[in-house]
């Protein structure tokens, strides 16, 4: 409340930033360690994405609620404490109620704590904004991050194994089945290995830049048209 000019309430901008313009993975290029490590299959990617999103929403909310009581000098260690606490809580809950998924994701659940995107949002957004925008920011950024993880997961799983949603039952229950796209597929190992993740991320980044460029040129090409309409004499 001390800095009303900093409080953002433009929700559609927050959502657009999280999902696309300032996407944690594609624009801020943060949190790549889990992104590259766990995107081998769609289900792993989705599970880690959702776990990250939960931590992000909780930490954004906590930081936003406490922001007036946290002295500037020690805000970073306190953010780290808050995030580490939520990660541990999410880890315990997964261990208790999603045991199979927990064993699959292994070390990458506790490693959520090292995802810079989370502390980045705590420092860059939640520490300056009200709880509601902070939660919406957490949801949008979390969805944006999960979306990139899943996109990379789809690319890598299809290329590496020729399947989609392998082991879906361990996350979603027994009704979920694996979709086999190519029978007797030999597999493309590069896609499963870490370099494949880097290359895949490179393609996604390039794709985003191409789309952004297209949208920019479309916007700018509209302006001369409208000015021409107003000044018919201009060649």
């Amino acid at each position, binding site marked *: 409340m001390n800095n009303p000019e900093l409080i953002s309430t433009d929700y559609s901008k927050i959502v657009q930033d999280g999902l696309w313009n300032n996407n944690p993975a594609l624009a801020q290029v943060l949190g790549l360690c889990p992104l590259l*490590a*766990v995107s*081998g*299959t769609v289900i*792993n990617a989705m599970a880690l994405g959702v776990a990250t999103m939960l931590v992000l929403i909780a930490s954004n909310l906590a930081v936003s609620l406490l922001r007036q009581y*946290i*002295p500037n*000098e*020690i805000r970073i*260690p*306190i953010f780290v*404490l*808050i995030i*580490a*606490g939520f990660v*541990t*809580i999410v880890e*315990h*809950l997964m*261990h*208790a*109620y999603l*045991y*199979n998924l927990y*064993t*699959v*994701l*292994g*070390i*990458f659940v506790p490693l959520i704590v090292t995802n810079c995107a989370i502390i980045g949002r705590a420092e860059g957004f939640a520490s300056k904004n009200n709880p509601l925008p902070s939660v919406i920011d957490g949801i949008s950024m979390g969805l944006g991050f999960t979306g990139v993880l899943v996109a990379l997961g789809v690319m890598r799983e299809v290329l*590496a194994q020729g399947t989609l949603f392998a*082991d879906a039952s361990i996350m979603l229950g027994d009704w979920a089945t694996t979709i086999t796209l190519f029978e007797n597929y030999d597999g493309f*190992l590069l896609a*499963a*290995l870490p370099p494949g993740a880097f290359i895949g991320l490179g393609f996604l980044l390039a794709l985003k830049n191409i789309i952004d460029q297209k949208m920019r040129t479309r916007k700018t090409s509209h302006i001369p048209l409208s000015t021409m309409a107003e000044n018919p004499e201009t060649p």
Partner: protein
Amino acid sequence: MKPGIISRSGLLLGLAGIIVIGLVTLVYHFTHDAIEESEYQALLLAINSIIPEDSHDNDIVEDTRSLSANKELGLKKDSLIYRARKQGEIFAVAFPVTAPDGYSGPINLLLAIDRQGNILGVRVVSHLETPGLGDRIESRRSDWLQLFPGKSVDNPSHEDWKVKKDGGVFDQFTGATITPRKIVKAIHKALIYAEAEPGVFFDE
């Protein structure tokens, strides 16, 4: 920074730490039983997958014998041996074996052998190996563990109880050699121990 701010910040930081630890402890307390139950169910499933349910006529999960912490099996804590009986006689046992030096940490296995020392089956109970590479030791990802049933301490011979890369008979995976190597080593060590000390496993 004034000294007053330093001590105030220190106190606040300590307070924050205590609050967060309190919250985590609370969650731990409430999830503890569910975690134990999940581990237990996973164990039950694992035992049934290596000693077929219809081959024995006892309640294998309840029929246990204690196994003390044991370096040969890689066990740091006391554990249990699960005994399969037919008409009262123990014909096979399942027991934990840990490969302490996996690629990212210990790999906990469950090994089943019969009285003659032949492997009935191996299961991975938990591990921290790299998703997509080392995790192919899991039976639902590949049938690599099917290399073991039927093997014993003399089959293959002592020098051949290694992965192919080290001159043995067991396949490794492309991109992951350490994980299979350590598992082969841990199982071999356990078989040698079981041959030397059958009483530990098969005594009443």
